[in-house]
């Protein structure tokens, strides 16, 4: 409990341990990708793991993000008790490959979690993510009880000024956001920014306090993902985020890797055939300078497998 109180205080004041530790990091949106000339890698035409291999190489290799002995936290979308071919959760093969890259880069520990919508034990199992992560040498961590979540403040938030964030995120040396691209009834599309709703406790608050604004607000939270990997292998084009059947799915075989959530979401929206500016939270996050949705300004490595 002491550790928790410590986090509440330190994160709240923005002066504590976490903040000091994160001073070394520039805000992801403005940081030049270490060891790479590219801001983003976009891949098409391969299996999820093969595409990631290509993308991360273009982005300077995993060792540019994960240092020896570091603790890595991966946040995929594991929201639903639905098998991998239904595209409701992040592809397990991709998550597995990311875990492998992290371990290869010398990570001490790779932890994977989500605050799921369906019962977490069923989601972790049916999605295939639990068994794939374990196979790759990572660990899955529950996100099912409030005790895991620490209160933080979001100084730039317009509607979302406080949130309870999973302690793993706050303690992580490296934080990787691995969403799956999907249609979404409330947010229109769910990609990397919306995926972080699964890193907080009270989602209902977001729903009743202007969902789009809350999503954009949380994108301004200082602990941004260090790496964003958008899974667009099986893409749910309609009836999202849960989907009804495989008929909702298009096998797009694509992937986007970057350090900027707003850019990731903008690129993924385009892949989906939607103008990023028409998704309110992408536009709001861009305006709040949480990142950029101007893909023209980015140096993108386009890879076809």
């Amino acid at each position, binding site marked *: *409990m002491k*550790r928790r109180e410590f986090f509440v205080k330190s994160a709240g004041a923005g002066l504590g341990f976490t903040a000091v530790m994160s001073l070394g990091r520039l805000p992801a949106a403005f940081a030049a990708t270490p060891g790479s000339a590219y801001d983003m890698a*976009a891949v*098409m035409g391969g299996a999820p793991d093969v595409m990631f291999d290509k993308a991360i190489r273009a982005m300077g290799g995993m060792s540019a993000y994960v240092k020896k002995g570091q603790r890595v936290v991966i946040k995929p979308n594991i929201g639903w*008790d639905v098998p991998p071919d239904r595209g409701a959760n992040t592809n397990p093969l991709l998550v597995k490959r990311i875990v492998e890259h992290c371990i290869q880069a010398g990570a001490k*520990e790779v*932890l994977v979690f989500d605050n799921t*919508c*369906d*019962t977490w*034990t*069923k989601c972790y199992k*049916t999605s295939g993510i639990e068994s794939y992560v374990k196979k790759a040498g990572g*660990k*899955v*961590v*529950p996100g*099912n*009880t409030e*005790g*895991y979540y620490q209160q933080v403040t979001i100084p730039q938030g317009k509607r979302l000024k406080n949130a309870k964030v999973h302690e793993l995120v706050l303690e992580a040396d490296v934080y990787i956001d691995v969403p799956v691209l999907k249609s*979404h*009834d*409330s*947010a229109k599309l769910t990609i990397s920014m919306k995926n972080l709703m699964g890193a907080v406790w009270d*989602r*209902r*608050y977001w*729903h*009743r*306090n*202007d*969902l*789009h*604004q809350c999503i954009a607000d949380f994108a301004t939270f200082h602990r941004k993902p260090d790496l964003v990997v958008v899974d667009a292998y099986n893409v*749910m*084009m*309609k*009836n999202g*985020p*849960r989907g*009804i*059947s495989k*008929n*909702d*799915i*298009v*096998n*797009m075989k*694509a992937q986007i890797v970057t350090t900027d959530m707003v850019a990731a979401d903008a*690129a993924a929206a*385009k*892949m*989906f*055939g939607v103008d990023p500016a*028409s998704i*309110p939270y992408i536009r709001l996050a861009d305006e709040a300078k949480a990142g950029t949705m101007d*893909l023209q300004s980015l140096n*993108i490595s*386009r890879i076809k497998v």
Partner: protein
Amino acid sequence: MTYSWLKRARVVISLIFLVAISTLFLDYKRLVPEVWFSPVLSLQFVPSLLKFIHILSLTAFGFIVVIILTVLFGRVYCSTICPLGILQDVVSWISKKFKSREKRRYGYGKPYTILRYTLLVAVLIVLLLGSSWLILILDPYSNFGRILIYFIKPVLVGLNNLGAPVMEKLKIYAVLVPVDLKPIPVAAYIVPVTVLALVVWMSVTKGRLYCNSVCPVGTFLGFISKFAIFKIRLDTNTCTLCRACEFTCKSSCIDLETFEVDYSRCVACFNCVSSCKFDAAGFQAKPLKVKPVTVESASVDTSQTDTGKRRFIAGTIALLLGSAGLAQNIPVRDTTKPVPKNALPTTIPEDKKFPVSPPGSIGLHSFTLHCTACSLCINACPTDVLQPSFLQFGLTGIMQPYMDYHSGFCNYDCKRCGEVCPTGAILPLILEDKKLAQIGKTHFVKDNCIVKTDKTDCGACSEHCPTKAVHMIPYEGTLVIPEVKEEICIGCGACEHACPTTPFKAIYVDGNEIHKIAEKPKEVKAKNPLEKTGDFPF
């Protein structure tokens, strides 16, 4: 001591049943596969009998096996299969550790014939009148289940949740992870607390008194066991009148004054045969040498109690007929109101006409008639949507589980409750059928909806809907608002659970009095936006 192995066998078998059944009830991590439930529970008398009556199938043959066992060996059910009976033995055994040698002794006692037969007849009458409320309160298996779910499970989960932060500190995110324990309504504790107190008190002071005065199964099997083939037999030639058998008899049914054993109360625990150093108590098909005089006195005794029994039963029938009126299914509105959190609290109350019963339960009447509230499904349900009711099914349905959408929602791909239910109150469904079983219908209250009141997007309901019965349609500007396609709604409650408005939900499920079959959602193949160019759109 020829027969002393019988007691050892009884203890071993009973512990196997106790551990197996308890495991099913206390498996709070839901690790036990569904297929194990039926074999372990198939011999439970009341569930098996209710299932047999319900589905008229010999697959629910457990109670017949129990009757055959009783005809052969007496009430071995009570001593080895019934978990409440075994629990009483455990309680007596523990309490003996704290008693003096004198106090540990049992002795012959008179039967509570009027009480036990009245209760048995009352259960049957109420059951015939179409309600399970009395059997729900008195069934030993269900009472045992409730003791575990209401008292033991919270302790177990509490210990788990105390251990979990320790594991968390050690960065071990396995073995002990926090478990969400939904609180049981305090009022639902009335019956389990009373029964537990009664059972503990009776087993501490008088051994198996509960089984021989209250339990309707005990009374029924006791009646049959009078005619059992194998029985405890006393040998007057070798008996030294040391009373060892009488002192160890939990049922107080050995009367050495008359050399008579009251077989209606003997639970075949074999304490007597193992305690007798002279083999004067045996377990045999043929009578041992018995003084003729005792037979006469015993028969006189029975006829006397019979008249008293009849008079009492006749006198109470009227009372029961009156109370059976309570047994009617009284739907009561859900009165649980969460604390308002909205900037603008919602104003229109949810108008629920019926509670929602689990998929496979056919309808409210069938469900409340066959459910004995053993609470097994409450633990087995992975989403915690099944919760003990208080007044949702009316007072007579107290503790029967209902779908509590404040607590959770029914997982689309789960059918576990039907697979574990031993009484057939929730019948097993194949997954395809379960996905179409409409247990209730969704109602949308536009005036409570965030999209209308706050003019912001929400859509949490539609997001969670597994069939897209709740889907979003254009509203003002770019806003979208929910719309319900009732024909494909299955009433799973995902929308109601997810709806963020308080104090009243903007979308809620009203139960179907009789479950219906929903239509299948229409499916259209999605198109790939990159198909034409096959290239990056940026």
